[in-house]
């Protein structure tokens, strides 16, 4: 299939790059210094795009590639892909669900424990040599805290399963109730925030869910509440989050995603009730390889006219 030209939008995985190079004619968007240069050389040969959470396939890119047949995203999130345009033009879209669910759920749990028990602060405390001068202060018990999940999809459910083992009562807000679970459903996010101590954002980013966690929700969660975000930065109104933390209106936050990655509001750097991670939810050796394999398999299936493994469109 090395006559088929595939466009990779940004460096995302050496393993994936090698696999793509072995099978296809690989074009790397980041090696071109100008857009015009790139389009001049490639616009008529590219039949597939491999995108990720940084650069996907927006309307401009899709419109400039008349031979585009498929967008295979190295992510489960689709917010960087113009799905409507793909649908319009009959372009297939695949993503990488399931293979990364466990890793992201693990990070969510890690963030909850790290914030509630101040794990990172304690580690800093020891390394700075402060322990001989006096004990670290008391934190709050995690087991039994009420956990509220925004979005009870694959990742939300995996988080719920783990939190249950710590005796945490689970409640959730979702577009629709999930009667097959025993968790308590709230029909709006404010009620969820009022009734939980840890609020976890685990839903997809769409036009509807942009800033779903706003000032009102943050205030409802309150000065003893903890906000965890392993979804997308724009699910939370970031300036409101920062001021709530600085003013003590929110108890703490564990964040793996931000509105303008890799920019992170520097006012958070001095806070001991936050844990900040550089979007590493699915960044393990095991999972990134599995994601890459899924991208490749979807592309191969498409070009061999077989059913796609994980189609979205």
């Amino acid at each position, binding site marked *: 299939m090395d006559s088929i030209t595939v466009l990779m939008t940004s460096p995302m995985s050496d393993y994936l790059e090698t696999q793509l190079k072995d099978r296809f004619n690989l074009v790397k968007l980041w090696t071109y210094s100008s857009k015009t240069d790139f389009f001049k050389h490639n616009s008529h040969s590219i039949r597939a795009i491999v995108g990720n959470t940084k650069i996907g396939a927006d309307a401009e890119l899709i419109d400039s590639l008349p031979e585009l047949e498929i967008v295979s995203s190295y992510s489960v999130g689709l917010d960087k892909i113009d799905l409507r345009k793909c649908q319009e033009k009959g372009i297939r879209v695949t993503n990488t669900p399931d293979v990364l669910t*466990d*890793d992201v*759920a*693990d*990070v969510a*749990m*890690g*963030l909850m*424990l*790290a914030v509630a*028990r101040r*794990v*990172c602060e*304690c*580690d*800093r*405390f*020891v*390394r700075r040599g402060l*322990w*001989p001068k006096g*004990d*670290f202060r*008391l*934190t*709050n*018990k*995690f*087991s*039994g805290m009420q956990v509220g999940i925004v979005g009870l999809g694959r990742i939300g459910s995996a988080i719920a*399963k*783990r939190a*249950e*083992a*710590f*005796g945490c009562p689970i409640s959730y807000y979702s577009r629709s109730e999930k009667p097959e679970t025993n968790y308590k459903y709230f029909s709006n996010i404010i009620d969820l925030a009022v009734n939980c101590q840890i609020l976890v954002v685990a839903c997809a980013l769409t036009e509807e869910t942009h800033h779903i966690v706003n000032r009102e929700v943050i205030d409802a969660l309150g000065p003893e509440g903890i906000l965890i975000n392993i979804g997308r930065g724009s699910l939370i109104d970031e300036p409101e989050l920062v001021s709530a933390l600085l003013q003590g209106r929110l108890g703490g936050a564990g964040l793996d995603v931000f509105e303008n*990655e*890799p*920019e*992170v509001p520097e006012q958070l*750097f001095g806070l001991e009730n936050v*844990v*900040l*991670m*550089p*979007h*590493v939810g699915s*960044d*393990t*050796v*095991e*999972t*990134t390889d599995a994601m890459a394999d899924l991208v490749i398999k979807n592309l191969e299936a498409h070009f061999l006219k077989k059913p796609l493994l994980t189609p979205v469109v």
Partner: protein
Amino acid sequence: MESIGVLMLIPMNSYLEQELQRRYNLFKLWTAPQKPQFIKEHADSIRAVVGNAFAGADAELIEALPRLEIVSSFSVGVDKIDLAKCREKGIRVTYTPDVLTEDVADLAIGLMLAVLRRLCESDRYVRSGKWKKGDYKLTTKFTGKTVGIIGLGRIGMAIAKRAEAFNCPICYYSRTGKPDTEYKYYPSVLELASNCQILVVACSLTAETRHIVNREVMNALGPKGVLINIGRGPHIDEPELVSALVEGRLGGAGLDVYEHEPEVPEELFGLENVVLLPHVGTATVETRKAMADLVVGNLEAHFSNKPLLSPLV
């Protein structure tokens, strides 16, 4: 009960101090300029000792208190108490099991996640501004890793229950097998270490279990293995641990306890595959209060000739 003398060995909890002061004639050993003199002076009225994980009733102290009837420890670990001497002299000993089980188990899981997914290192990475220059490296998946537990008591079982929710196969070493569990039993710590990826020390410290994790065990756990200690520092041969980590013979470690607290080997401070906590396993507001109530409850029961709440001897 104000004529009853209670000797508190070191500061451990102001709420406990208050409650003891209200009920008894409380002697605070750490305020004495000359400790042996202080003890001699008040030996006639001291009928109870309250110690904790750092200071307990050793043979010398017991001999110096002829009217001692009960030792009530603000801890579940009783390695600082001379239990044989207490038995000999008919002195009762109480401790604080159960109320702290969840907190310690939570922290064990928190340490596992923090080491495997490099939570603290990632947080440092973000706060230092490095994310703007490039992504953090890949870590290794936690879900599904085999967890080996030394000591399947209350805390060991609570750790197992939590790890199971992450699909971790559980195996253990204990003085005797526990037939009512389905976890895989290994008859030696060495075999356990050879067959798991994360080894957790959760047994009590006795003469037999001192340095139960030695060089051989750490080599068996190996360069990809992770060692977690939420028991007592002397469970692990600390100099051997340091060299194993520095030389890469051991993959990583999450430690809440050390051989000579609050001293922590400084060679560990520069390592990114360790997480170091200042003995905070039970250090939450909720649990310390419950522990304090149990200490006071045991003393009250004893001095009212009622059955002790949580006797060990």
